[in-house]
């Protein structure tokens, strides 16, 4: 009923059998493993369960790596697109697709999955089978969040993921595990139910824009999809659903994530979007609260130390490595492109910026005061993620690139730190810093790896942390000098508490006789630490392969939010 949206010179999509369902495979393979484990393996055979799960996680890496192999670097936007009907009544579809940014996070998730399984071999001694089932379920949830190209589907993954995490903390956690688990669940749920309302509001608001401003929407679609014909078909599909809202299909709008991005970032001659600013602000707030809790930003961070400290090592690794990233990813994927006017609004920027800075400084200072290593690392996450938020608020390519890199780096280095803390905890069953000292003499290999990770975490050049922080801060400096000052302060504080931790734990003479007989890293521990160390050096020395993936999506976000930037 409507004329074709765009008359671009894009070639029609060529059918590629190799890509069909690859992303689905990535997302659902862990679930298949969970079901297999649940139904076919006896719970008494713990050794088999461990090996099976670890092997299965490794198997799940295969399609993820295939994504990289089949990746077409010169195509903008989404690849591996899948689009099937799901609930026509509300216009929700089973749509998957990853762009470079999501791809990087999918890979990180897949890798951390293997490491999480590997690091639990000896840590988890009770109810092994359930533990690994939940770990696999969690994996599907997290991968689904990054792969979903439909808001409804995203939301389903986003919330379902909480259930396995609740169990991981609640059953296998430390002493106050039940408290920490329910706190984690409730906090995140508050955010996500408010986000659901914002999603619904957007769902009802978008069709109006699609009908009233076809030309501007077409421009914004063109900007979003560039030369990508598959993505054009996907977005077009969503916009058609929106334009026929209220029709015989019964759908009142579309959940197509990228169509909503296009509709949200379409702008008129006055440079403003078509959704009224006050509604944009409300919806932005709805999404933002959901993601701010996830990140977590001050003052919504209080669930994090509890959850981290009580969670088993694998839980902490996944929590820090992936779950927190969902918050920052959400800002970049939803908040900025869908509500650009709200994102640029001075109130939004100052509120988020101030909270991020408070998070950086406060998180670092509290980390410095911790007596428990794991808690220290947990609070350092608050600081690092604050920096990640601050860089993305610069709203320029450097800032957002830095932010995405930071997400990746934080996943790698904090993941490694949690693994390392887990290693020592398994030996001594304590994480009190005062219990240790002079470990470098006893466990040199462990001390070396810990040192590299520490340096990576504090952003020493030639290691990954430096790249992210440097690029991000450069972006912040372009946008606002005072913010850059606070960001740099955070880095200095980070160096202070990490190095002080290192000094107290590893240097000097062995003060506690119980540490004298500690054994150094085992082969299994090497196996899960080495990949992360390699990544630290790789990204630190030659970040270009990674930058290649995140550069395109980042530029698109900047174009959507502040089109004037590139002129």
């Amino acid at each position, binding site marked *: 009923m409507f004329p074709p949206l765009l008359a671009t010179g894009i070639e029609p999509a060529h059918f590629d059998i190799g890509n069909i369902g690859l992303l689905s495979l990535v997302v659902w393979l862990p679930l298949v493993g969970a079901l297999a484990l649940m139904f076919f393996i006896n719970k008494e055979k713990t050794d088999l369960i461990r090996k099976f799960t670890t092997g299965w996680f490794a198997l799940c890496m295969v399609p993820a790596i295939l994504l990289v192999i089949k990746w077409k670097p010169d195509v903008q936007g989404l690849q591996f697109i899948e689009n099937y009907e*799901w*609930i*026509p*009544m*509300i216009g929700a579809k089973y749509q998957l697709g990853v762009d470079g940014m999501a791809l990087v996070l999918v890979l990180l998730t897949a890798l951390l999955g293997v490491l999480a399984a590997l690091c639990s071999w000896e840590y988890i001694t009770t109810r092994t089978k359930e533990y690994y089932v939940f770990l696999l379920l969690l994996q599907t949830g997290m991968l689904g969040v990054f792969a979903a190209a439909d808001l409804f589907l995203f*939301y*389903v993954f986003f*919330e*379902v993921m*909480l*259930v396995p995490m*609740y*169990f991981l903390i*609640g*059953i296998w956690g430390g002493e106050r595990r*039940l408290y920490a688990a*329910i706190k984690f*669940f*409730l906090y995140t*749920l*508050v955010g996500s*139910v*408010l986000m*659901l*309302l914002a999603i*619904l*509001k957007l*769902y*009802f608001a978008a069709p109006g824009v699609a009908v009233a401003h076809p030309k501007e929407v077409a421009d914004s679609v063109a900007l979003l999809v560039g030369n990508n014909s598959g993505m054009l078909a996907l977005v077009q599909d969503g916009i058609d659903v929106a334009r026929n809202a209220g029709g015989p299909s*019964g759908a*009142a709008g579309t959940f197509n994530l990228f169509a909503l991005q296009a509709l949200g970032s379409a702008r008129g001659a006055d440079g403003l979007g078509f959704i009224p600013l006050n509604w944009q602000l409300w919806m932005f707030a709805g999404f933002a609260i959901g993601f701010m809790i996830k990140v977590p930003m001050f003052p919504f961070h209080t669930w994090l130390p509890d959850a981290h400290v009580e969670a088993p090592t694998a839980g902490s690794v996944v929590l820090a490595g992936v779950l927190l990233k969902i918050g920052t990813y959400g800002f970049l994927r939803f908040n900025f492109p869908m509500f650009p006017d709200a994102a640029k609004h001075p109130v939004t920027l100052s509120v988020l910026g101030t909270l991020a800075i408070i998070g950086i400084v406060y998180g670092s200072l509290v980390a410095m005061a911790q007596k428990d290593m794991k808690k220290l690392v947990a609070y350092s996450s608050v600081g690092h993620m604050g920096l990640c938020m601050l860089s993305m608020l610069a709203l320029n390519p450097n800032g957002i690139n830095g932010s995405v890199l930071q997400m990746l780096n934080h996943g790698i280095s904090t993941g490694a730190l949690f693994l390392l803390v887990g290693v020592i905890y398994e030996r001594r069953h304590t994480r009190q810093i005062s219990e240790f000292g002079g470990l470098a003499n006893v466990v040199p290999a462990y001390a070396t790896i810990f040192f590299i990770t520490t340096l990576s975490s504090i952003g020493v050049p030639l290691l990954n942390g430096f790249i992210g922080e440097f690029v991000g801060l450069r972006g912040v400096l372009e946008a606002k000098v005072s913010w850059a000052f606070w960001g740099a302060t955070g880095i200095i504080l980070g160096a202070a508490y990490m190095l002080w931790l290192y000094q107290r734990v590893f240097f000097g003479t062995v003060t506690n006789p119980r540490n004298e007989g500690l054994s150094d890293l085992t082969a299994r521990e090497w196996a899960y630490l080495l990949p992360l160390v390699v990544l630290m050096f790789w990204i630190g020395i030659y970040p270009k392969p990674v930058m290649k993936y995140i550069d395109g999506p980042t530029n698109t976000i900047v174009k959507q939010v502040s089109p004037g930037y590139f002129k």
Partner: protein
Amino acid sequence: MPLLNILGYPTIYETFAILPELLLVLFGCAALVLDVLLPRERKELTAYFCLAGIGTALLALWQVFETNRIRLPFTVFYGMIAVDGFSLTLRLVALVAAALAIAMAVKYLDVEEEQHGEYYALILFATSGMMFLSSGVDFITLYVGLELMALSVYVLVGYLKWNVQFHEKRGEKSSEAALKYFLMGAFSSAILLFGFSIIFGLTGTTNVEQVAGLLPGLFKANMLTTTGDARLMAIMGIALVAAGLFFKIAAVPFHMWAPDAYEGAPTSVTAFMSVGPKAASYAMLARIFLVAFAPLRVTGDPQIPGWAVMFGVVAALTMTVGNVAAVTQQNAKRLMAYSSISHAGFILLGFVAGNEMGYAGAVFYLMAYTVMNLGAFGVLLSLRSEERVGDKLDDLNGLYQKQPALALMMLVCLLSLAGIPGTGGFMGKFYLFGGLIQAGNKWMNILAVVAALNVVISLYYYARFIKAMFTGKEKEEAPVTLSPPLHATIVLTVILVLVMGLYPQPFSQLSRFAVERLGPPTPPQAAQK
């Protein structure tokens, strides 16, 4: 349809429209006779007989739909019974709820040593009352249906005898609950009837569509009747009807009876009354407020707020009070009573939203609520054994160790009750929130936020069940055993909950079919043209 009403009294065609109800009553009466004939140890056969009755009624209902498909909607019995999407859907819900409730009760009644045929007969009678509530379009039909249902349920609540041998308090509690429920129920019925009489006095009719046609006239001019301002009378009538119905659905502030009645009643009855009669009361509420009082949903007059405002306030209170009170409960049945109060508030949101999504959402939510609540109660029922009452939260401790599958099914039901995606409960909430947001007015948005935050509170107490099942200390004392019908019921409910959550399309269509003609039904003559 030339044969219709030619003779001036109900024809066989009209009687056919209420065949499912008639069948239920027939089977119920036969069950009473059968109960006398069966030997003591074979009494449970009555249950299967009654299940067969419900099966027959389901077939009949399908036939009613199938043969009348083209001429829906229409009314029979001089405009007292409607055959439309709404009545068909809600009758289906009532039948399913009754079937599941009967299948669940068999083993439970054995353990309680109360296996009697009249239990199942009463459920059938109550169900036929529920079905009349879904299809009645006249105050008289509705009231008679309501009383048929309510009287049967009063008896069921007091079903447990005073049992000296074991847990003697139980019988006392059951009788106490029944008396409380009966007194409060009778009182509220009287209020409801009073409201009806006022409306009848003002409009001269008891038919919901005719009332809908006449009510706005009362508000047009400042109509002064011989007894006073007609508007005032109308508002009073509506308020009284609302109060009576709020009692039936246990909405705040008329919810006080629910926890006591739920706790005291035999668990199988609690399961039944928390879904079946509740859904039927909602059907009545919908028929009266969405048809008869529809014109006054929102009045143009700023001085007279429509009933939507009242419903909004009641919904917010009901959700919040129910949830907050549930948090501290130790008795599982009492907790479920409060949780069902809060669910009542959620369903009211659909009435407040006042658009198709909201109405369809209310119907969807009712369907989802029916299965998920029955599933959860099924698990609670399975805990009942010779040694254990099974209504404490602690009785769930370590369930996962004893019966992993059962615990996982309970988990699905609880997550659905809490509204986690992938379950029917989430889709229900999704539609209700969607309705409110679509309506888009400021107060509705605020109401949506209140409702959303209530989801979080509710998760907290459902998580207490989860905590007990998965991390509680295992008690060796009594193993959990399932009878085949109970097991089948729980599996069925869990499957339905998951299908509603993962592929809700057919249920969404059904709920939209239910509400798409929820307005004044067209008379048969008009449908003929």
